[in-house]
């Protein structure tokens, strides 16, 4: 029988390190939520491993009193894969940002998700390079003015959840830095998922991209600009819960409709986490014409790379032999 786990609190997961994020940074809120969530997961503290790349978000492991590895730019998914392959018992978390995870590390993210390595990716998306002082990122909207794009960026941005879907991710969710309750629930579900859980967290950078998520963060506005998706529930939103999402069958596109006597909730799209087509449609909804979808967008049960790799190792180890047997195998000859 394993020993019962000691009762842990948020404090057990905080380190003595001085936190060096800018005042007002969304990362503080995320850190707090994760530290608070940790005891609720009821897992041994020593089993938690936070692996990050480079960037503001990637300082995260220094502030978590667990095992942590602050690696190099973009490579956290690869390092984390090595950690998990070495010890599948560990619960591995990848902390990354839009630049780290989707630009310099885009290739590794793609392959991590494709392999479905059993871990959680928390991608802090603030649509800007913070630590290098404000250059536009691969998620910045066209026209973003920054030190490296004084006339406005001309690159087309990518949408993290859409990319994850294309890469074959088996769990895709979106949440918001300051929505502690929502974030906590989403991350917990990601933790329960077997395989790669990709969670995009909209995160405000008060210095370089302040207010870009105002519509979905501001309590007064958010109800009209975001929709909380829940498996089996119709896509309803709005302050008065008077708006919904419908599928236009003629064009195979989504449309926002007002709920009236003629259009009822039963006429709306019902969220189904297991429907990839639906996930594609709702993950790409963006303002101001559409609400931004938050919650678990997509989920699918699929084989995980680490489990299958370990299974091959287990099969091979059944034929265990000694080093001497290996050295002597095949054609040999003896000189007297």
């Amino acid at each position, binding site marked *: 029988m394993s020993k019962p786990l000691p009762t842990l609190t948020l404090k057990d997961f905080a*380190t003595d*390190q001085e936190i060096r994020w800018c005042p007002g940074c969304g990362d503080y809120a995320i850190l707090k939520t994760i530290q608070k969530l940790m005891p609720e997961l009821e897992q*041994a*503290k*020593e*089993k938690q*491993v936070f*692996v990050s790349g*480079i960037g503001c978000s990637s300082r995260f*492991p*220094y502030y*978590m*009193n*667990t*095992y*942590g*590895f*602050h*690696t*190099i730019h973009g*490579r956290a*998914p*690869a*390092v*984390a*894969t*090595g*950690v*998990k*392959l*070495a*010890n599948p*018992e*560990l619960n591995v978390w990848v902390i990354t940002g839009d630049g780290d995870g989707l630009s310099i590390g885009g*290739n*590794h993210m*793609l*392959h991590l998700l494709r392999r479905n390595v059993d871990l959680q990716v928390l991608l802090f998306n603030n649509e800007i390079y913070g630590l290098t002082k404000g250059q536009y990122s691969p998620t910045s909207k066209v026209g973003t003015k920054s030190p490296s794009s004084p006339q406005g960026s001309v690159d087309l941005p990518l949408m993290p959840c859409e990319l994850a879907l294309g890469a074959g991710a088996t769990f895709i969710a979106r949440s918001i830095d300051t929505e502690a309750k929502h974030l906590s629930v989403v991350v917990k579900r990601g933790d329960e998922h077997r395989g790669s859980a990709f969670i995009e967290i909209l995160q405000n950078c008060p210095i370089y991209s302040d207010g870009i998520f105002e519509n979905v963060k501001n309590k007064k506005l958010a109800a009209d600009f975001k929709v909380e998706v829940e498996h089996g529930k119709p896509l309803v939103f709005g302050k008065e819960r008077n708006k919904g999402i419908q599928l236009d069958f003629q064009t195979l596109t989504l449309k926002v409709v007002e709920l009236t006597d003629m259009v009822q909730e039963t006429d709306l799209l019902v969220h189904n986490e297991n429907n990839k087509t639906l996930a594609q449609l709702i993950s790409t909804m963006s303002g101001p014409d559409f609400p931004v979808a938050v919650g678990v967008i997509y989920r699918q049960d699929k084989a995980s790379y680490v489990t299958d*790799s370990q299974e*091959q*190792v287990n099969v*091979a*180890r*059944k*034929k*265990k*032999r*000694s*080093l*001497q047997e*290996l*050295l*002597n195998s*095949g*054609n*040999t*000859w*003896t*000189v*007297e």
Partner: protein
Amino acid sequence: MELVEEKLGAHHLDEKQVLDVVVRFAGDSGDGMQLTGNSFTQATALYGNDLSTFPDFPAEIRAPVGATFGVSAFQIYFGAEDVTTAGDELDVLVAMNPAALITNLANLVDGGLVIVDSGAFTAKNLHKAKYDSNPLEDSSLDGFRVLAIDISKQVLAAVEPFGLGHKDGLRCKNMWTLGLVMWLFDRDRKLTIESLQKKFASKPEIAGANVAALNAGHSYGETAELPVGIHVYKVPKADVLPGTYRNMTGANALAWGLIAGSELADIDLLFASYPITPASNLLHELANRKEFRINTFQAEDEIAAVCAAVGASFAGTLGVTSSAGPGIALKSEGIALAAATELPLVVVNTQRGGPSTGLPTKTEQSDFNMALYGRHGDTPMPVIAAATPGDCFDVAIEAVRLAIKYMTPIMLLSDGYLANASEPWKIPDAGSLQSFPVSFHEDVEDFTPSIRNGETLARVWAKPGTPGLEHRLGGIEKNYDTGNISYDPENHQKMTDLRQAKIAGIASDIPKQEVVLGEESGKLAVVGWGSTFGAIHQAVKRARLENLKVSHIQVRYLSPLPPNLGDLLAGFETVLVPEMNTGQFIKLLRSEYLIDAEGLNKVSGQPFKIGEIMAAIHKEFAAIRDK
């Protein structure tokens, strides 16, 4: 020094007994030359000769039939004395078609024997090989002993009772030829027959046809009237140490050395790699050896491979990554992360011709500088090199030992020649290999990840999953005492000094540099590293038979260097450094020891010939006499 070659003595095929012979089997990629060469190698090893082999594949996977760039060859050098290279010039060339003849004839010694399948010298094949006229009919082969046989016809007759079609029948050509060459050197066919029967156990008619072809080739030699000067050659047995032997390629030896290293260290090993020529065989071999404490990961790219290996090491498994030059260049940032976080990591570089894609299937030693210096920051890292295919086994174990003991990345240099070449390898007693069990830190009291061993300066290795040792590592500079982030100027100086001192300290943990052959001081030392061993060794041996006072020194530990190397070199009037690069190791020797060394440099994608080193030795002695 200018690269020139000396021919090695008068030709000897007139004699009934010869001390050593170089045979090259060459044919189309589909002619089965590698199988032929390997079978002949087995028989030669059993016969009791020393030997060395080198398979020479084309870079193209399935070249068009009859094309010169599709010629696949297998070379074997065997003899009565120790053999350490695959040979300079060929004594016997087996050419299965015109393309094989035209691409190899220049290497055949004057008076050498060429065996050809005249049936393959059709107008079409001659045209593909770009022959204007048939070399079997004009004077092209006048200076050689020629055995032109319509092997195709002979084979079809020999395999007729087995009822194979024309195409399948012709596929036995290589065995017929092998039978003939076995007769030529009095080799026993038993082992080949056994392995053919085993290989084709489910197709008895194919097995039977191959064996019949082998026997027919052999009896052709016995019974046919052959041209003057072609007869059975006796090659006396070599005086080899008693023991059980196997044939071993460098790639295989390196893979098995890593397996042995993990057993001796009592640790799991994750081999993370990305396919690249000529390094991939290592990945293939280890992927097939998961019954040991091995797992393999084919990463999406070279960077992911090194990073996954570093991640594995963080988690308490030994991470190993492998590539050739271009891939190692991509890994450089990941290697420095291992150095900064002081995690063990073994990096294997199977060098090939560069720069860029360069010569992927050819050999070179031009990554020496990259191995020693190719990292950002002040990032010292030990570098060791294997000298022979068999040596790859020992060097791999040593790399594992040093990486773990000093919590450091280490670079192991091999090359394309070593990886593919093979030699008889005396199988060691696994029980006699010295173990070096890893010890993970478990003491919770006053733990920091910076606790160090006072002697080695290595920091502790605390495995994630261990209660109470939760800690963070990272690439940012760390406080010497606590391991926490530190931007303090004095601390950075201290940490930089520490990293240097830790690696420099390895010098006291490695064997003293010894002289392979010759005196410990004298007129001339030929100093090599890596796969130049074989050619240097033979050249020095031959020069010493001429009473030249020359010694051979082969350096395995390239960084840090053995502490006595400077004094050793100072005892020689002249130092000659042959390298398959433009002179990289020699610069280190000059700057480290302020000695006047002479370089001998070859960058052609081909290993040194013994005659080239001999010529350089003679030139040095001529200069010494003139002084």
